[in-house]
Every structure is written in C-alpha cells, then in structure tokens.
C-alpha cells in the first residue's frame, strides 16, 4: 500500500510526522514487564495510576476553588493537602528514578479522563 493518504495539509511535514509519531509511538508508551524489570516496571505502572488520580483530584479541587463557594479555611486546607501530595509524588519519582515522561504510558480509555 503505497498511495499517499494526505488529502489536505498546510504545515511543515517534518513537524507533522514527529507529532503523529508521538501519538502512535509504541516503544515508550507501552509497559513491558519482563523478569528483569519487574519491580521497576511495576513501580512505573503504580505511579502512573497514582499520578493520574492525583491529577484528577487536583483538577476537581481547582474547579471547586474557582467556583467561589469554598471558605478561605477550606481552600487553605485543600492547598496544604494537595501541595503535600505533589511533593510526595516528586519524592517517589526521584526514588524510583522516573521522569514525567516515563509515567506517560498509554492509558487507553483511562487516558481520556484527563
């Protein structure tokens, strides 16, 4: 199948193929568990899920703060908890030597929640 499927395009194709490559990149976005990387592979999976939940919770919290119906005290407590969660996450990432990029596993349908 060699025909070109591009029907319309105005931008630079270099940028494009790089971009689509990221979207469909199989290597980094798949999680491959092997006997050798089982524990760090598992850490990666767990932290990815935890990070997803943390981001969802943070997003919800910001919506509530923006909504204007929380008291100063509630906002203060939210801030303290969320900030500490963020710091804890950074600590865990450092401990397992994982970057944000590493945690960017393709989550399939869960990814759409973000």
């Amino acid at each position, binding site marked *: 199948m060699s025909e070109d499927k591009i029907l*319309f395009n105005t931008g630079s194709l270099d940028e494009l193929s790089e971009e689509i490559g990221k979207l469909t990149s199989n290597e980094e976005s798949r999680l491959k568990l092997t006997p050798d990387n089982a524990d760090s592979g598992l850490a990666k999976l767990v932290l990815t899920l935890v990070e997803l939940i943390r981001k969802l919770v943070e997003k919800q919290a910001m919506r509530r703060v923006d909504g204007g119906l929380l008291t100063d005290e509630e906002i203060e407590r*939210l801030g303290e908890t969320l900030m500490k969660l963020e710091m804890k996450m950074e600590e865990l990432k450092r401990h397992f030597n994982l970057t944000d990029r590493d945690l960017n596993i393709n989550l399939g349908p869960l990814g759409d929640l973000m």
Partner: protein
Amino acid sequence: MDMMIYSILSVKNNHEKLNTLLIAMKGISGADLYAVSLDEISAVVCDIKRADLIADKTNAIEYAGVIENLAQQFTLLPMRYGSIMGSTDLINKMLGRNYHEFQQNLQKVENKCEFGLKIFCDSEKLKAELRAKSEADTKTPDKPAPKIKNSVYRDWVNKKLKEHRLEELLLTYVDSVIAEITGYLARLNAVNKFKKMATETTIIDAVFLLDKERKDALIHVIEELQNQYPGLNFVLTGPWPPYNFVEIIIK
C-alpha cells in the same frame, strides 16, 4: 495451525465474487486468503503460525493493505491486527454469536469511508494569546484578597488556579473550534468523533464517517476552516476503512 482474521465482510449473495477476489490476493508473508462464511457475512482469514505474528511493522502494513483492497469491493469491518482464532469452527461460532451486531455495524458503514483530521498548534502560544484576550475583555478579579495572611499553601493554590484557568480557556477555545467543524459537517451528513488535546500540540484529533462521494466536499470544508483559523494547522487524511467506527464487543 491458527487463523488470522482480516475483516468481516458484508457478502450477501456475492460469495462467488469474494472467492474470485481472494484467489487473486495474498495475505501476510504470501499466505493464501479464504473466507469463513455465515449467511450474509464472511470473515476473511489466512493460516498463520503465532511466531510469525510478532508485532512487525511490515506485516501490520501488509495486513492493512489486504483490508484496503477488500474495502474497494465490499463493505467491511476491519479487525485489529493480531486477531487470531484457533479454527474455522471457532470462527463460525463467533460469527454466529455476533451475527446481529456485525450486520448492524456493516449497515452503518455501507458506502461510507473514514477520514481523519488532526489539528496542530503551539498550545503555549495559544494559551498566551487567549490569556491576553481574556484580560483585555474582562476585568476578572483575582481571587478575593484574603483576610488572613498569605500562606505558602494559599500561594500554591493561586498558582495552580492560574494554570487551571488557562487550561479552561484553552479547552473552551478547542470546544468552539469543534462546534464550528460540527456545523460544517452537518451538511455532509457525517458521523464525528473528537478527541481534545491528545498532545500539547495536537489540539484536536478527529475522525469522520461519511459517504465516499462526499470526499471532495469534505476537502473543501477543511480548506474553508483553514482559512478561518490561520494560526492552526489542519491535516486531513483518508479515505480509510472504518477502523474507528466499529462499535462492537465480541461475545
């Protein structure tokens, strides 16, 4: 010996036509193709050894090529690469259990093709523009001045809040573009699916299902949209078999 399924075809009375076509084609690694049929539908399959199936790009591309060729002659539902079953008997039973759903889906895609639209832009730049615009438009008061001393937690919240609001501005903008596209596509009787912010630069990843004959009209619509949004980069691809429009959970 296992079998790989390429797609499910709507054959109706044209089994002869299908067989003739399959004789003239080859599957992955030169394998012969044949049909496992049940009433009006057929699964196009070939024999395969599991070892051959290692996710090899070349094989996957060849597999897609077979589907593409079949789609020129028959309405079909593409299978994901790696769809394997143990025997023709098992395939037959699977066709039987899901016959109704297959027929429904086949009817939905008859005479239609899928097209993909991706819209790219530099989202940091876009956010900056949107923020500038919103600051000019309204005097949005910053969060009410706290009666208590500013704590480090409150500062953190304010920082996150700012980021959050920018995100929301961006999403509102993306929603408006989607609304615009939907408006245009309504005229073409298209079924649309949109994904927002697939990456920081891919702000919209969409697929459309519409009549084959409407291809040129679709290109024209995209040209108009590109003119309307000079800061965004539109890329339209197709026609594709309806990969994104099969809604079925196999029993």
